[in-house]
């Protein structure tokens, strides 16, 4: 069945495009593109993780010389850039690619070729970033934030230019993807799927796409100014010629804070799908959860200055950014309370996806609370630029986003690949990472309070710094062992894993209506949607008819 559903014209496929490799290189199928995103992002996750382990090895003991100076700064810069731009943002896009058309009852994304372009730009951007290690002067070393004037006047190596190029290409990739998601979700929902019957994951991807569309052009502008300052002789950020290094920070964080929600909201969307299924309940407060997603996104554009409290902005401006940042805690709290209420009076099973989802709630709460300290700007003056901030962002982006991503991987793996992941190995993976994560990052709060700045390659203090750093390194390597268990799980189940039926978790959303994995055309027939839980409706009808 190779027919275009809308026009009835058979899709033409040249022979050379049917090969095992070429079919992947030329695919415009949203599911295959989604899988390309997933694997590519997981490989970059491994690379970024190796950099993290090198950083932790260097910091394990005082006065260590394993990875110092420019090499340490390169590792820090590329680790951050990788995890944000090459792992979390694209892997969430990969989930969206695979799942959104299935969840809304469409046969593909609105613009399949643009979708493929989006993926190949992503891969290109990632390759540019990693090959920049071989550039003259090494990879970029000014931090993932690349503040001017360090990045403009004092990093003569080509690595910084390649960093700019990589981010420019990745920005184009994400913009194309964002437009595709917005058009797809707005126009291609199945009959009967009103906005309030759409899965919450689709709400989160729609919001993610709008955030990308509105925030990324600002990053592009900042990157372009940086490129011109470095190579053409403009002075946007050069105070000696009337420019301002603070301008760069405003531009960067106007993008940079929405970026945090770009990385967190879809993970929250995954949690909102997983928790009801394993609690055997509908999500508590569907509309409140959907509206808080949109609310967080809107507020996310008003808080960028909380990254700049030490810059010496006027007190009135600092106060404004403190208040807006505190307000964001309200819709975030609404989500957490609604998830907890979804557990209430449920029938909770602890399959691996649910463990990751519950871990998300536990850890993201800590990341949210430490954020309140950082929003209170006089307290931030002590905490900013220390390991407290490192702990905070990892509780939000690893304890939050990555735990959500692993919940999603274990949950949808059967839909992606047609086989279940192993539960025992999955649980071992979860517990190693959960314990390792807390060992790695909780002590970093304490290090930050004690005054250990981030981005330093060594320290001479003994005592508590030494103890906390050692615990942190042990935790990091524990997580790494957990990730190896995941690799083992994937390899083991690839051949011998249990075959997945259409709806192995007895979930409620439309993607489970398709076979596992779904055929290229997704559905034989697309049902008319009468509630946010079409598969539950279907099961009830079949039960009533005595067929189930």
């Amino acid at each position, binding site marked *: 069945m190779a027919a275009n559903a809308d026009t009835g014209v058979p899709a033409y496929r040249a022979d050379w495009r049917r090969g095992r490799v070429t079919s992947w290189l030329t695919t415009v199928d949203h599911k295959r593109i989604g899988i390309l995103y997933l694997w590519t992002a997981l490989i970059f996750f491994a690379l970024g993780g190796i950099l993290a382990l090198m950083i932790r090895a260097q910091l394990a003991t005082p006065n260590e010389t394993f990875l110092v100076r420019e090499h340490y700064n390169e590792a820090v810069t590329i680790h951050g850039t990788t995890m944000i731009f090459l792992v979390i943002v694209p892997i969430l896009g990969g989930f969206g690619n695979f799942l959104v058309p299935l969840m809304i009852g469409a046969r593909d994304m609105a613009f399949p070729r643009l979708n493929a372009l989006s993926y190949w730009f992503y891969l290109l951007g990632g390759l540019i970033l990693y090959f920049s290690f071989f550039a003259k002067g090494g990879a970029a070393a000014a931090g993932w934030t690349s503040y001017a004037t360090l990045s403009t006047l004092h990093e003569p190596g080509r690595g910084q230019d390649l960093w700019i190029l990589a981010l420019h290409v990745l920005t184009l990739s994400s913009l194309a993807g964002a437009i595709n998601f917005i058009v797809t979700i707005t126009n291609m929902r199945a009959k009967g799927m009103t906005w309030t019957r759409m899965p919450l994951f689709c709400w989160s991807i729609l919001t993610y796409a709008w955030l990308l569309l509105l925030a990324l052009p600002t990053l592009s502008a900042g990157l372009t100014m940086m490129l011109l300052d470095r190579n053409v002789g403009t002075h946007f950020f050069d105070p000696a010629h009337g420019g301002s290094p603070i301008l760069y920070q405003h531009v960067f964080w106007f993008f940079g804070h929405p970026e945090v929600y770009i990385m967190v909201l879809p993970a929250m969307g995954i949690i909102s799908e997983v928790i009801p299924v394993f609690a055997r309940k509908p999500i508590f407060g569907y509309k409140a959860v959907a509206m808080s997603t949109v609310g967080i996104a809107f507020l996310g554009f008003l808080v960028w200055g909380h990254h700049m409290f030490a810059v010496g902005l006027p007190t009135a401006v600092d106060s404004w950014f403190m208040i807006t940042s505190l307000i964001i805690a309200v819709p975030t709290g609404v989500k957490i309370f609604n998830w907890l*209420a979804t557990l209430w009076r449920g029938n909770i099973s602890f399959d691996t996806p649910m463990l990751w989802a519950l871990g998300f709630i536990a850890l993201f709460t*800590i990341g949210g609370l430490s954020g309140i300290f950082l929003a209170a700007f006089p307290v931030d003056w002590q905490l900013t630029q220390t390991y407290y901030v490192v702990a905070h962002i990892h509780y939000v982006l690893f304890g939050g986003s990555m735990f959500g991503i692993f919940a999603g991987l274990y949950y949808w793996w059967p839909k992606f690949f047609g086989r279940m992941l192993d539960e025992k190995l999955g649980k071992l993976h979860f517990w190693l990472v959960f*314990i390792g994560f807390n060992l790695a990052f909780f002590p970093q709060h304490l290090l930050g309070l004690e005054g250990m700045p981030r981005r330093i390659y060594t320290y001479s203090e003994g005592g508590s710094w030494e103890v906390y750093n050692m615990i942190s390194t042990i935790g990091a390597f524990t997580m790494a062992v957990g990730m190896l268990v995941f690799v083992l799980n994937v390899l083991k189940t690839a051949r011998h894993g249990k075959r997945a039926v259409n709806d192995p978790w007895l979930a409620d959303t439309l993607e489970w209506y398709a076979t596992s994995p779904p055929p290229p055309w997704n559905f034989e027939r697309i049902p008319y949607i009468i509630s946010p839980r079409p598969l539950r409706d279907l099961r009830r009808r079949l039960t009533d008819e005595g067929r189930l």
Partner: protein
Amino acid sequence: MRRKALVLSIVGAGALVLAGAALAGNGGTLPPAPHSPNADSVRQAYWFVLAFAAIVFVGVEGALVALIIRYRRGKRARYADGVQIHGSTRLEIIWTVVPVLILTAIAFFIFIKLPSIADAPKASAADSTTITVEGHQFYWLFRYPNGAISVGTMTAPADNVVNEGVHAPDTDVLHSWWVPALGGKIDAIPGRTNHTWFKAAAGVYPARCSDLCGIQHTLMTATVSVVPRSQYESFIKERAANPDSIALGKEEWDHVCAVCHKLNETYVGPSLGSNPIVTSAKDLTGILRNGVGRMPAVGSNWTDDQIAALVKYTKTIVKPPSANGS
């Protein structure tokens, strides 16, 4: 079983962290011990936020664990429905309004504490001074009201209000000035001057750059030495009278040159132990003011006296190979 594993693991992980804290004394549970009124107010603000955060933490994590235990599947059928509850407007309102009240309380307390943190107390000229803090790759330079200069160590009068004007030269990068015991960070930014202050008893307080500023950011540390007012006065008088003193030269060597150069081995830059340039003011001037190769213009705004001071000191430690032939 699973519940036990969960509880045990959480308790175990918590215990490990606490054991670490116990091993380390009570380190890291609060910001550094304050020695200045502004740092003290920051600590109080921290306490206030911590109190609320602790309540919310215990409430949310406690509820999570309780719900997990109470509503676990147990012996029920795997796919038996939970109670099909879709939401509650009243609960949504409650858990929107209560956080708003908590956050309002936090913001209110911060605004009450703010003046004692941000605003330097009024003080007469005899009880205060102003010191300029200048961030360079990779050292801190201090300028005193009478034109005296020190590098790497700020000398300040005890129990006086010390106003600090913090900046970086136009050609340098962004740094962040932080004396943990004496208050929060303030960025040293090329092209603008920020202000902060402290008032401390006599003592020695470590300071450092806290914003990535290049390859030796890690070593960009300084000391704030707070001494009785009379001692401070005589220190700056002495420095102003001898702008090319060997004492300044030693500070420059230790905090500017030695960050990247060693006497007898190649470090970030070449070994300087027998380099004749280092003992020649004429040769040094161009390198310090303009940089060379990877070396930044560390002395972009140095006076001839500052360079002379450095040469005085380097002549005592650098031994150029004696010119045998002549």
